[in-house]
């Protein structure tokens, strides 16, 4: 069902929504940007319509809502192990406003956490099962986006789609509570979602990448340029790696916890083993590992590419390393070309 809402109508709708649900979306943190005097646009709690930023891409992705940077798995106390519980506020139904690329990214995270291996990840599942999505339609893409190339400019699995247009908001309600909210706060209207049809950037993913390219000199450029900061992986909506650590509480050494924290294949130590054995010490090798995971390995395992073309990794890289250019170079090499 389609509805047309005035800004006041949508504001009232959201005011009602936040009384019973947690709502997250792109929000602005003034003065917190990477460069002096700039704002950080990223995911955060939405209290009302005024919080939602429509005209920018977020620096970080919405994955934190159901895959937190740090999560307690269980607590230890005097030989007892107690599974961590979610706070009452965390088991509320959760609504995330996101764009098509990021919604496609959720299906990638689901593959790892719910399907890969012998069992589903209960910590991911317990947050994910209460999380619902509202698609923020992109009429135009941002610089560096390549969702069309990745086939992630369209999405499914959301409860509603929304876009500002001509001074109104157009809502496509696909499920409750959006059908009744639309009924109450808007006017019925014909609403067809719009999808980005073209990005200024085109990326050609090679059909497959031969291991013969693993030693190619193209990777050597990254050996010196990449500083192994891991920002690219932190900002990526599809990166899912983590490390598990145990700690004792300093103020009460009888008690402690096992927790997980995000980890990155780009950062030193990711593969260190006992006896000093390491793999991919060279940063060019790590770049290769990351890029091939995103556009080759994952697809061979799950049938879809991992990368959703959001362009964030390139935007946050302090060394201006371009993922898109790397993939295009690979394609040319696989087709026998000389590379960019």
């Amino acid at each position: 069902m389609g509805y047309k809402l005035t800004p006041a109508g949508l504001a009232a709708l959201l005011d009602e929504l936040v009384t019973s649900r947690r709502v997250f979306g792109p929000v602005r943190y003034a003065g917190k940007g990477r460069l002096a005097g700039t704002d950080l646009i990223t995911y955060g709690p939405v209290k009302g319509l005024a919080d939602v930023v429509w005209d920018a891409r977020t620096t970080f992705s919405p994955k934190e809502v159901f895959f937190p940077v740090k999560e307690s798995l269980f607590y230890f106390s005097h030989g007892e192990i107690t599974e961590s519980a979610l706070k009452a506020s965390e088991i509320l139904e959760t609504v995330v406003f996101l764009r098509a690329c990021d919604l496609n990214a959720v299906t990638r995270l689901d593959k790892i956490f719910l399907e890969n291996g012998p069992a589903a990840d209960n910590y991911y599942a317990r947050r994910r099962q209460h999380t619902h999505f509202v698609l923020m339609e992109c009429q135009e893409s941002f610089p560096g986006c390549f969702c069309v190339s990745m086939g992630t400019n369209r999405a499914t699995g959301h409860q509603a789609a929304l876009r500002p247009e001509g001074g109104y908001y157009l809502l496509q309600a696909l499920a409750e509570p959006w059908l009744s909210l639309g009924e109450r706060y808007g006017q019925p209207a014909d609403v067809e979602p719009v999808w980005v049809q073209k990005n200024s950037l085109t990326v050609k993913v090679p059909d497959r990448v031969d291991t013969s390219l693993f030693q190619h000199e193209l990777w050597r450029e990254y050996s010196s340029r990449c500083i192994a900061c891991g920002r690219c992986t932190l900002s990526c909506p599809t990166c899912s790696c983590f490390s598990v650590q145990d700690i004792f509480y300093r103020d009460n050494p009888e008690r402690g916890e096992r927790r997980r924290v995000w980890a990155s294949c780009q950062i030193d130590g990711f593969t260190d083993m006992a006896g000093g054995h390491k793999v991919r010490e060279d940063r060019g090798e790590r770049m290769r590992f990351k890029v091939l995971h995103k556009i080759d390995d994952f697809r061979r395992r799950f049938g879809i590419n991992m990368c959703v073309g959001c362009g964030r990794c390139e935007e946050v890289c302090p060394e201006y390393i371009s993922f898109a250019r790397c993939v295009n170079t690979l394609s040319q090499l696989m087709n026998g070309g000389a590379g960019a």
Partner: protein
Amino acid sequence: MIANQIANPYLPAPAQVLAIQPQTGVDYTFRLATDIEPAWGQFVEISLPGVGEAPISVSDAGPGYIELTIRRVGKVTTALHQLKPGDTVYLRGPYGSGFPRDEFAGHQLVVAAGGTGVAPVKGLINYYAGHPGELAGLNLLLGFKTPADILFRTDIERWQGLFPTILTVDQGQAGWLGKVGLVTEFVKEIPLKNDARIIVVGPPLMIKFTVAEFIKCQIKPEQIWVSLERRMHCGLGKCGHCKINDVYVCLEGPVFNYSRARDLVD
């Protein structure tokens, strides 16, 4: 899509330490009371709350217990070495692929193992010691750094009486009358049948060069199995640390047929 209550695969179960047997100054074998029934070559995650968790191969198993042979190298392994019988550890698993017994049946089997690499094959060798008729011969090639590093001495003595066994050390020592040299140097001394099945386990370089020696002896990659070690944090295909190409060592490994392992490039 998602069941409301799903089991917690990260939650370990307590297990009592039944016995601790030092093998060398730094390698201890722990016998733990548990119902886990691993296949040969599989591993478990063992942990001490507040210290951490480590993946360790099962070195032997029997009704109601498993054995782990653990080298003291860091935080978790050092804390484990301070335990006494009667103490509690935490276990989850078993995980990963094991050695394919069906592929070995009726063939000559050669086990080439270096250092702690003997641990994941000890249970398998002991099984064939009790069921020699299942194979057309078993040859052992075991290498350690020095005589002081030799693991499972009593088992090895028994195996020497049952199977052609080459025991070698990289560096001899006063009083050592046995063989000296790398495992790789002794591969050509093993009389190999055309259809022999080969297991190679040990440190990465030992695996690489030992496999190369077998291939020089006309053994095909498909006849060789290796066990790979990678950093692991979950054992469940989630954390990503153990991934090589499209393979998760904790899921599809640690045991791989070499025709697959040779294409895995870190």
